[in-house]
């Protein structure tokens, strides 16, 4: 597995919505390159036919009945909001609809 470049880190930081300044990028790139190289050893461990394990326990079909439970009030819902207006969460302008 090839290493992790400074550009890679910058790109991934954008995906992760974390602004990094140049110094942080430098430090982070160095540390992450080392870590990625170390975790990369894993690529040789498991054969192709080993099934991946996404859950520690083999549970299936856990559901709940379609019955209404009590909701929060708008006041409770908005209690932690950095900004709100008209019982809605106020957020900065959104660049584009997805």
């Amino acid at each position, binding site marked *: 597995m090839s290493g992790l470049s400074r550009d890679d880190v910058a790109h991934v930081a954008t995906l*992760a919505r*974390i602004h990094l300044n140049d110094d942080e990028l430098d430090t982070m790139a160095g540390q*992450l390159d080392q870590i990625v190289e170390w975790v990369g050893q*894993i690529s040789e461990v498991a054969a192709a036919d080993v099934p991946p394990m*996404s859950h520690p326990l083999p*549970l299936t079909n856990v559901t709940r009945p379609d019955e209404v439970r009590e909701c929060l009030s708008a006041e409770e819902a908005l209690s932690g909001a950095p900004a709100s207006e008209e019982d809605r969460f106020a957020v*900065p*302008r*959104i660049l584009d609809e997805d």
Partner: protein
Amino acid sequence: MTKTELCLLSAAQMANGLVAGDFTSVELTQAHLDRIADLNPALNAYLYVDDAGALATAREVDEARAAGQDLPRLAGVPVAVKDIACTVGMPTTAGSKMLEGWMPPYDATIVAKLKSAKMPILGKTNMDEFAMGSSTEHSAFGPTRNPWDLDRIPGGSGGGSSAAVGAYLAPLAIGSDTGGSIRQPAAVTGTVGTKPTYGGVSRYGVIALASSLDQIGPCARSVTDTALLHEVLGGHDEMDSTSLDAPVPAVVEASSTRDLTGMKIGVVKEISGEGFQPGVLARFEEARAKLVELGAEIVEVSCPHFTSAMAAYYLVLPSEASSNLARYDAMRYGLRVGPDGVESPSAEQVMAASRAAGFGDEVKRRIILGTYALSSGYYDAYYGQAQKVRTLIACDFEAAFEQVDVLISPTTPTTAFKLGEKLDDPLAMYLGDLATIPANLAGVPGMSIPVGVAEDNLPVGLQFLAPATQDQRLYAVGAALEAALTEQWGGPMLDQAAHLCLAQPFDKQEAGA
């Protein structure tokens, strides 16, 4: 009884004393609150102390008891909660600036259970930010210090809970264990901690680090006390899809075990030797001999894939964490800051600036690592491969448990290291968790109990591991070994810390009491 004497009791003794009317819950709770006021400035074990709430519960219990009501076993016994669990009426920060001052509008299931068990909640304990770390140095609100030596780390991420219990600032505490965050702090503070079987305790309302690894569990100073709290916390919760729909294992009953005849114990070769501090290995060998004296048969077993556990863990954890922590985006709750010098920033810019300001370096590192591991073109080589290694590790456990009832290893390769010592070397910090991580990857339960001090006079922990849903086995072997060691030492483990930093405040407490 003096206030200090009250604090020095075990949780079981407190519960009995309350029933016997030897003291009230208000007295007991106040004693702890006073001790916290005294010692917490030095330890920074608590991020928030809820005097009023704890005393209100205590008063309620005392009144109910006076009125002759039937009460739960631990009613009136105070408890501390790691700041990772949502609590109505107390801020919940997960040790992060991102959530500084955040007041959840709901209780975690385990908090609701503590409340219905009528246990006064003393406050919220310090932790590595979002439980990422092994030293509590990554808390945004300053490190917690080890009661055995204030210059040393109390372990992490649950260093606040272990330090609180170890310094008698609470008889019981809640921890969460994603890769050892209950067991490793227990080991380095000379206390007891259990990571139950994955799904054994509800995760609902506990701030997620890595969903498929996280497990909530009890911290205490003895195996019995740990079992008592485990029983309160455990059981099915319909709010957590990964919660086991099975009765809580009989952990309290198991903790009265004293004889291990017929028990087969395996020593895991891969996590018990190379790179371990000599004093740690020495205590481990003595404990092993003690187990034989108690009637157990010890065999060496090999779990070959455990050597890949660390790498798998540092792919699974950051991957899941990068997604779990995406919600901290400054839109609905938590810190919101605008980027410097940008007029009318977009939501996107505010998110990036807030996450930059709200998260500490370790959190950023892991989010970026996880985002990378999941990103297109890398998934199969990293996350996908790590999930396969989990399967292999689970198979190793399965094979081992066909031969033995429980597995043992030292909990940590070394005793508590100095604050700051590994802060600039994340990889070195990660390697301290090599013995605890396999249990999280496979979902099996584990426990750490103290087995003496090493050459540096710092505590050493021994880890037990059992098959999934067989948590009671940990308590059986843990209790038997604990009893034998206590007898050998002539008193509990923490007495050996009395000459250290705790002594002075003890005296001060006496004088004031």
